[in-house]
């Protein structure tokens, strides 16, 4: 049920602790102090989930299903980095908001001027450029931003 070699970025790591039984439902293994890599810190001595190598999220490394993860890991938020597409949408929204705000100023009547003023035109121009920039990021997909 668990394939530790699925993510080949980590197969050459040497600072693993043997926790295979742990994933198969057995009680947490007693880890001899001598086998705990120094990088794992003091909490590893207590059989804590931080037996994983420093910096690794076990969910992403071993592709646990949610049920397994619930058993092993207390509920926690994940905080994945943004992708290029997500960043593109954010920037596109920002540019669109700038354009709409600039146009909306006339609708709500702020300024009471006729037509588009120079500041409005500049804001619309900058907003459009920002939106186009955001648009150009969308095809880049799920690559990390």
């Amino acid at each position, binding site marked *: 049920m668990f394939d530790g070699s699925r993510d080949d*970025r*980590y197969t050459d790591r040497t600072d693993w602790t043997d926790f295979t039984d742990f994933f198969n439902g057995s009680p947490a293994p007693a880890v001899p102090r001598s086998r705990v890599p120094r990088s794992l810190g003091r909490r590893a001595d207590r059989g804590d*989930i931080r037996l994983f190598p*420093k*910096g*690794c*999220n076990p969910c992403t490394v071993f592709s646990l299903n949610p049920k397994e993860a619930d058993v092993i890991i*207390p509920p*926690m*938020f*994940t*905080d*994945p*980095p*943004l992708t290029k597409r997500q*960043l593109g949408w954010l920037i596109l929204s920002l540019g669109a908001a700038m354009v709409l705000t600039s146009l909306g100023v006339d609708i709500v009547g702020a300024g009471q001027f006729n037509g588009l003023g120079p500041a409005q035109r500049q804001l619309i121009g900058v907003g459009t450029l920002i939106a186009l920039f955001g648009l*150009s*990021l969308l095809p*880049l997909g799920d690559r*990390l*931003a």
Partner: protein
Amino acid sequence: MSLAHLPRPWRWVVIVLFALALLALLGQFIVYCHYAASLFRFPFDYDQGEGFELYDTVLHAQGQWPYRDSQVFPFYTSIYPPLFHIITVPLIWIFGPELWTGRLIGFLASLIAATAIGWGVYRASGNRVIAAFSGLTFLASNYTFHIGPLFRQHMTMVMFEVLAIVALAGPHPPSPSPDAEPRVGRGGVLSYPSGIWIGLIFLLAAGYTKQLALATALAGLAFLFLRGPRRALLAGAGLAVVAGGIFIWINYATHGWWYVSLIKANLNAFSQAQALSLYRQWTELHWVIIALALGRLVYEIYFSRLSAYAIWFAFALGNGALSGKFGAGESYFVTVTAAACVLSGIALAQLWKHSAEWKVQGAIALAIIIPLLYLVQTRLTLHLYTAGPIYTTVARALGVNSESGYYDSQGYTQLGPRPTGADHEAGYAISELAHNADGPVFSEEAGFMFKAGKPVVTNAFPQLVMYQAGLFDPTQEIEMINRKAFGLVILRAQFYPPPVLAALGANYQPRTEIMMNGFLYRILEPRP
């Protein structure tokens, strides 16, 4: 790539070019040190406003806030945050109110910023030579040169900005790698890497050194947001709570004058033409590192991951638009220059690294182009003295002789020339006049007052911008002028509200005019 990869004749060509580039950059650094040493010895205002910053520091040293109601005697307030002055306070306690104290802090801040730039490039690329070139290029910029050794808070802000971004970039190498993932911890904010904590503290410090650091704070948070939105939001909220708490505390302690002086008084008129002019000048002086940084920015956007440096460069580039504010100037581009130095250095160092896999001709071409680019950049920002035993020879060799004794590729600049013996004498002459005057002296520069043993009265520029914003009522000041309560008036740029200048003209008459640092100081005495 190492030089060993290059064929022997080309290897020596590359070494000679790198040595020439290093020589040029070190030469500019020596000129910078010489300029700084000259300013340390000059006991009067070199740049208008230095004396007032010294007075801010003196007030802090006495446990007082400089944020006050400037509509009552002594008509003084400060429009800058306190951290730079607080850092300088120990020197004031030890050595007294001397202008060299803050100038030394500013100069050291520029050196620390340059070192951090070099460290950032080295950590991202492992290339020591280009890292050193990047730091030296920052110091060789005309803008760094002009304002580095001044008693102004700007360079200290830039130092904190650079340190913040370098610290934040620490856990996240700019190039894609498995290690580029943020560390995921279950311990909440306390489990954040130390680089993030240090970066946030430096961002806070930069903001409380000068408000202009807001763009860098946003850049830092934007970088964190890309790498982990939840963490960035928590970090941003935490930073806002701490910064806001300090803000409210100082505002309470100063009875609201902190907010008036720091925020309202800094909302000045904006000139688009001025901003565009400064953008043009900055581009003309730094186009090599700008082009490289822009290229790296585009590469990271579309072909790699965005680094903290690239985001910082983009934000700082936009922030340069604030240089259109009344009273703003070239200093508003020092931050983006620092960002350009880091990003261009990383761009070249990465190219150098990858060139090991190129054909020999390509590697040779790159190895020749890199030092040539730094040579061109150094020539663009060239500034040196043209009089003196060594300077004359060097200036003649470079074909940059100047009658004024100072050449600056930027053209005419108020900052840069070293104060002469005549400038020292002029300063002491004005101080002597102030010392012998009856009562307080109405002076547009505070430096003379410290030598004359007189209280500092008025702070011209804040008065003017606050008057323009409707925040300063000069009634009491004009009433004192009408009573001829001031024994002497010293004017330089006449940056006072028009009604104040009119009252001075009506009640005071010219006594003498003294030239100092290329400026004419008009000394007025009460009319009979």
